[in-house]
């Protein structure tokens, strides 16, 4: 792939976004994108670079969620590898949940 080919890059990122939306948080039942765990997703050549975070340092299934995100992205045929970076600052808060996610959780309009 030519790195300058924006349309192909956009298509791959869209597929990656859809793949991440298949990964659900088992406790809350919404996908990791709507939950706000995905900070940024970009392509570096054929490698997907994912900056993500977890809902808390004490998340007992944090390693599992990271592995599921990795596997979902790695399964894309156009991708040669996944580079994942865990961010812990600023800490995750429920403000990061998307409007759709809040609707699913029934927490619209809460503080």
């Amino acid at each position, binding site marked *: 792939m030519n790195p300058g080919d924006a349309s192909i890059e956009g298509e791959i990122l*869209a*597929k990656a*976004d*859809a*793949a*991440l*939306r*298949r*990964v*659900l*948080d*088992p*406790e*809350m*039942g919404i996908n990791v*994108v709507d939950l706000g765990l995905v900070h940024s997703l970009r392509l570096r050549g054929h490698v997907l670079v994912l900056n993500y975070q977890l*809902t*808390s*340092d*004490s*998340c*007992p*299934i*944090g*390693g*599992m*969620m*990271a*592995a*599921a*995100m*990795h*596997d*979902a992205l790695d*399964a894309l045929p156009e991708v040669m590898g996944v580079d*994942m970076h865990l961010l812990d600052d600023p800490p995750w*808060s*429920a403000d990061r949940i998307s409007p*759709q996610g809040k609707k699913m*959780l*029934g*927490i619209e309009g*809460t*503080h």
Partner: protein
Amino acid sequence: MPRPALVTPFLWTSLGLSLACGFVAQVLLAHDPQAFTQHWFRQATVLVALHLTTLGFVGILILGVLTQFLPMLLGRSLGSTALAGAALAAFVLGFLVLIGLFAAWRAPLPAAAAGLALVSGSAATLALAWPALVHFGPNQRLCRATLASSLFYLVLTAGLGGLMAQGLVGPPWLAPGPLDVLKLHAHLGLVGFACLMVFAVSYELLPMFNLAKGYAQWPGWVTLALVHAGLAAIAVSVFSLTPAPGPWCMAGEGLLALACLFYALQVLWIQSRARRLQQDASVWLFRQACLALVAAAVTGFVLATQDAPGPGAVAAAVYLLLFGFLGGAIVSQIQKIVPLMAWVDRFSALAGKAQVPIAGHLLNKPLAWLALPLHFLALVSGCAGLATGSIQLLRISGCFGAALFVDQALLAASCRLRGQARPFPMPDPFVRADLRSS
């Protein structure tokens, strides 16, 4: 990518052992209720039931959970799984020896065996927990201090229990009578070890499960300080030979009652800040447990002001704390953790690759809700039976209590059977979410 560090067979084993202990304790209550009425603190059946509940049900479950969840709370390795397994096995071994000795009651107990049982359990626990406590993150200082205090009181109460078992409570250097030391031993174990352990774990688990914005630090610190001061005052009342109701004893019980109230306020505060507080059986069971805690605290204080409180009333206060608060709080959290454990076992490897149910869908809700009336009925009939000496009520309480543990075992088993993974629907779902939603 590294796969999860959550070793669920370890947790399932702890859960199974602990539910079995709780069940047997309740069967003892139903089978031999007379033992719980007259001079209950000298009855082998009661001692077995009490230690089955405190060390077996509460201790094994909490230590089992801690050895798995603590490393994740810390974000650091606590050592190998083998170490965790060995420590818990030592604790269980010591506990079983102790139960065996109580069952074949002879006073004083064989010193070596009792000492070995007590020391092996507490030492293994501390050895396991110490590296974690040292490295605890700064944002969890309250949790760390509460956990460390809990383990400290476990050592104290185990040591005191060892002295009592060897009949060393009578010599002049340890002047108080056996009943005074028993009172101190019970306070150190139930409030110092078990309650503080539940407090510490709940500070982390409650916000996590309810999407609350953390917890207030100051009520937690006040709770911890009050527990320390209250237990110290009770120790002074015992060793200064102040006749009951003495000022130290009343002060101690008063401080502990305040500590329990502050903890209940903390729970209310966390729940009020929850962004996703599902009014499920777990939440209501925890509220019921906190009510029992406040009731136990107030009862304890009232009894401390009386010249000669009846043994039935004292037993009812202990039951409120042990079965009402500790039992209720732990069962409520089992209902949150068990579906997650089942999900990890069955579906974590398929997450993102297939449609998998979420953890909450694995929970059998009728069984979860059944725990609420079972706990309530067992608690009310048990307290009434202990206070009035009614054999019939105690038998009923034991039956309801045993049913509660069976219910939880069935709930755990059903989590391993419910729900199944399915392939993602065709055609290719790799469609942009915004296009799909439009």
